[in-house]
Every structure is written in structure tokens, then in C-alpha cells.
């Protein structure tokens, strides 16, 4: 029982990271109708920048905030330079551009920071919080940071006019343009926000999986599974899917298939969702006008 609870709580912590990344995927999906294959590598670059700053002696939380700002700028830049020219291209071309972007960002990270594995600092204390023995403090911190971020995002989208404009662009770009919303600016803002959300996920997972250029490959697979499970167009679903995948991954890995095949769970989950419930748990079934 104790071991089971331990696995569930550990799953919650990694689930928080998957939830953040899945949320970033959904944010971009809602404005572009494409899955951002480069999301993980954007987060990887952000994490490397944070690592470089911390190594240079910048206090952790200052580096954290600076990384968020830098990631936002990077997201905006990527949207402007690489993604926007492909807006009217056929779907196949757009997917190829995303794959290209993924490969470029990964190799840039490898080129600049090298292929050796680095330890990434955790901002949270070594000893477990509140004297519990189920969860390390980094796990609790990860969950806390994720929920804080979700709260801020929720408030932004729900209570600010900028958030409202962003939602309007996601739902109906033409009408938004007609009522005077600068659609291009909102797209760039969406990319920036998604990159910043991904950066948080990267900085939270790096102390657990260690920092190297292939760090995000496995993590992203779980995030894809989470986003699909929740419904690729549903932000709430992505968060729920993230935590579900985190817990499932740990339980299935421990009790069913063994840690070697943990990642295969993600593949099985992706294929399973696509067969039995393509719209995900909370997504809208898609319909096309002929």
C-alpha cells in the first residue's frame, strides 16, 4: 500500500510536467490546428539557458523569471520567422516545417551546450517537506509551481481582455479580425505563452531526468499522449490528461510492464486513444464542412 501511494504521488509530480507541456501543445493547437512537434525542443533550449544562468551565479528564481521572458521572446520569434510564412501552405508542408524546427532547435542546443549530461539544480530544499515520506520536496515544489502557473493562466484567459482576445482568435480568427483584434499579434502572443509554459516544464523536469539534448524526447511522448487523452483542443483536458498519464506511467511501469517498457505505455496510450476515442476524453469531435 505504501509503495502504491508512493508511486501515485511520484506520478503526480511528473504528471504536473506532462500537464504543462500538454497545455502548451493545446494552446498552439487551438490557434494553428497543428501539433507543435517542436514544443519539447523549445523547452529544452529554455532549460539550457536557465542552466547557463544558474551556473554563472545568477540566483535560481531570478534565472527562472529571466528564462520565462527569454522563452516568451523565443516563441514569438519562432512564430514570426518560421511558422507564419507557412500559414497558407498545405498541411503536409506545415508538419514538415514543425519537424524541421524540432530538429534545428535540438541541434542548436547540442551545438551550443554540448552533448554531455549535466545535473540541473532544484530550487527546493533537500529534506522532505512537512516530514512526510511519500514525496520529495522537489516533487511537491513541481506540483505547486504547476498549479500556480495554471492559476495565473486561468486568470489571464478568464479575466483580462487580452486573454479574451486570444480566446476569440483561437475560436474564430475571421470574426476577431472584423471586430478589430490584431490576429497576427495574438498568434505571436500565443506562441510566446506556450513557449514560457514549456520552459517551466523543462526547468521542473530537468532535475529529475538530468539535462542533455535528448532529455525531452521521452517527456514529449508522454505530453503528446496526455494532450490526446484529454482532447487535443481542450486545455482542461490537457491538464487532467497530464496527471492521468503521469500516474498511469508510474503504475504500469512498476506493476505491469517494468521500467524498460515505460515509454511503450505512451505509444499504447496514443494508439489506444486514437482507436477508441479520437476526440479524447474532453475534446470536441471534429467535423469538416464539405
Amino acid at each position, binding site marked *: 500500500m505504501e509503495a502504491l501511494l508512493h508511486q501515485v504521488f511520484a506520478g503526480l509530480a511528473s504528471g504536473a510536467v506532462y500537464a504543462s507541456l500538454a497545455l502548451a501543445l493545446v494552446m498552439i493547437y487551438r490557434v494553428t490546428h*497543428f*501539433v507543435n*512537434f517542436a514544443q519539447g525542443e523549445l523547452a529544452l533550449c529554455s532549460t539550457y539557458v536557465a542552466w547557463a544562468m544558474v551556473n554563472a551565479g545568477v540566483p535560481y528564481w531570478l534565472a527562472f523569471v529571466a528564462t520565462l521572458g527569454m522563452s516568451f521572446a523565443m516563441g514569438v520569434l519562432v512564430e514570426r520567422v*518560421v511558422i507564419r*510564412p*507557412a500559414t497558407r*501552405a*498545405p*498541411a*503536409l*508542408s506545415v*508538419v*514538415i*516545417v514543425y*519537424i*524541421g*524546427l*524540432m*530538429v*534545428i*532547435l*535540438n*541541434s*542548436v542546443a*547540442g*551545438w551550443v551546450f554540448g*552533448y554531455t549530461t549535466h545535473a540541473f539544480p532544484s530550487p527546493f530544499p533537500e529534506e522532505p517537506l512537512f516530514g512526510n515520506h511519500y514525496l520529495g520536496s522537489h516533487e511537491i515544489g513541481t506540483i505547486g509551481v504547476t498549479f500556480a502557473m495554471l492559476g495565473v493562466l486561468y486568470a489571464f484567459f478568464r479575466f483580462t481582455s487580452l486573454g479574451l482576445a486570444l480566446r476569440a482568435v483561437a475560436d474564430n480568427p475571421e470574426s476577431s479580425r472584423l471586430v478589430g483584434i490584431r490576429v497576427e499579434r495574438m498568434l505571436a502572443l500565443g506562441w510566446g505563452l506556450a513557449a514560457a509554459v514549456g520552459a517551466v516544464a523543462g526547468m521542473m523536469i530537468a532535475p529529475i531526468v538530468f539535462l542533455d539534448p535528448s532529455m525531452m*524526447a*521521452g517527456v514529449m*511522448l508522454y505530453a*503528446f*499522449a496526455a494532450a*490526446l487523452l484529454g482532447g487535443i483542443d481542450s486545455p482542461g483536458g490537457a491538464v487532467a490528461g497530464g496527471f492521468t498519464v503521469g500516474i498511469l506511467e508510474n503504475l504500469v511501469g512498476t506493476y505491469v510492464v*517494468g521500467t*524498460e*517498457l515505460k*515509454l*511503450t505505455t*505512451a*505509444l499504447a496510450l*496514443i*494508439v489506444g486513444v*486514437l*482507436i477508441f476515442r*479520437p476526440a479524447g476524453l474532453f475534446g470536441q469531435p*471534429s467535423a*469538416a464542412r*464539405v
Partner: protein
Amino acid sequence: MASRDHDRPAEAAAPGVRVAAVCLVVLACVAPLFCSSYHLFQLTLVVVYSIALLGLNLLTGYGGQISLGHGAFYGIGAYTTGILMQHAGMPYWLTIPCAGAVCLVLGFLFGLPAVRLEGLHLALATFALGVVFPQILKTRGIERITGGVQGITLAKIEPPFGLAISPDQWLYCVALATALVLFVAARNLTRSHTGRVIVAIRDRPVAASSVGVDTARYKSLTFGLSAMYTGIAGALGALVVQFVGPDSFGVFLSISLLVGVVVGGLASISGAVYGALFIQFIPNVADDVSKAAPSAIYGVVLVLSVYLMPRGVAGLVRRLTGALVARLNARASGHHAAPVSPATPVTQTKEGS
């Protein structure tokens, strides 16, 4: 990118293309006589990759479905050969069709659920397959068969009937013969009823299903055929390298194959050769610069191809030969006004909403 002029009008009309193809085949046949054994090894891999790219192009170029997991099918083909030779003592030549059959079935089965959905989901599912595949190979339960992390080392194959050629030369001949058969088959397929249906599903899925095409079945079939080509390439690749190991068949291979298809030219048979030359030689050159350089070049080339060269090298070659033929025709007939080039693409129709 979905080029509406799948290459029938262009290639059938330009006589130069056929001559060029024959010259290329003759050149490929005599090449082993002049090559060092290392260059022959590289050349054999080019032939092998061109088969794999042809397979992926059937799916992506003609079928309009993207796969980021074809490295896994290449690996399945390679492992089929390795396992059958190692554990069943099967002669190498028999393992090649076996690898094709295994991949045909597995590709069809994998495609069955995935292709019911829009292309994006297929991209996700195949990406997951590509990432997970090396891990599955290393699983302890099947380690006895797959060789785990160590992989399987294959024996060198010997030329039959006491032919006075080296094993490398013989292997090159086997690969080249297989490639020729498969290229002709693919060319005929794309011009057959089935090929037309595959392209119709790519361009107008709703219209295709309204006239009674079972789109899901054809899509799975395309996926299976594509996997079969790639699996056969994998089997030949295993014989060439004489080794199969889990880490040779990761995401990087899948992405290399996609790069090869895009650079060579989507929906083009000849593009597979250009793509294979690219993915065989460019990373070798780039590796000297930095470990990150091959993938950096891949990424940049992917993005730039979409914007600058949507028909790939095959499209460029076609345009150049078209212009050349037009000029020659003009000179021969004494007209100064150049006639319309036979290779001019059919006017592109705008994608309807």
C-alpha cells in the same frame, strides 16, 4: 507541396528522361568495377536508402500521409533478416522477401487504426513508434532473440556459383537488382488504377469516398506497401552493414528518411535516388564540422525545402531538362519561339475550402 502533377505527364512526355534513366542504370551497373571497396559500400547503401525512400514516398508523396516512424519499419526489416539468419539458419536471399512480408503485414495492421484519422494523428502515432522502437528491441523478455543492446552480427555473404567477384560486389548487384524491380513496380503502381485512387484520396478525400472508394482500406494498404519497401531496404541494409543493433533504428533514421523524401521530391519516383544520395553523403561531410551539424543541416534543409524547393531536386531536374528539351526542339524545328515545354507542370488548382 501536394503537387497536383504527379509525374505521369512530365516523365512520359520527355524522351530525355527515359534516356537519362537508362544511362543511370548502366552507370550504376558498371560502377562496382571502378570503385574502391569503401566507395562501393557507400554506393550500396545509397541503393538501399533509395528503396526505403521510395517506400516512404509512396505513403507521403503519393498518399499525402506523413510517417515519422519509418525508421522502425526499416529496423523491423533488418531484424527480420538478422533473426532469420541467426536463429533459423535461413539463406540470406530468402530473408529479403520475408522481411518485406513481415513489414507489409505489420504496416497494414499499424495503419489500420491510425489512418482512419487525419494526417496529424498518424504523424503523432508514427512518431511515438519511432521513439519507442529501440526500447522495445532492448527489452529483456526478447533479448534472447534480438540480442538486446549488443544486437546481432551477421556473417558475410558469399557470391554464388563461384562467380569471380568480391562479396561486396555481389551484394551491390543484389541490392541493385532488387531496387530495379521495386522501382519499376512502384512506377507501374503509381500509374495503375490503385495509384490513381491513392492520389485521389490525397487530393480529394471526400470526393474519393463519395464515388465509392474505401478510403480507409486503401490508406492502410498504402501504409503496408510503404512499410514493405522500407522493410526490404532494411533487410538489404542489414546484409550490407553485417550488423543490426537497436540504436541504429531510432528517431534520427526516421527523420533522415523524411529529409530524403522531401529533398528528393515528394510524389516523384526518381526523387528517391537524389534523396538517398543526400542522406548518405551529406551527414558524412557534416560530421567533420560538429556532432550537431548533420541534424542541423537536416532541420534547415527541411524548412527551406518547403519554402524554396517544394518539389525537391526531382522538380528542379525536371524543370531544367524540360527547358533544355524545349530549346533543342525549338532549334530542330527552326522556330525561334520556344514551344511550351512538355515538362511544364499542369496548372496547380487552388485547394478548395
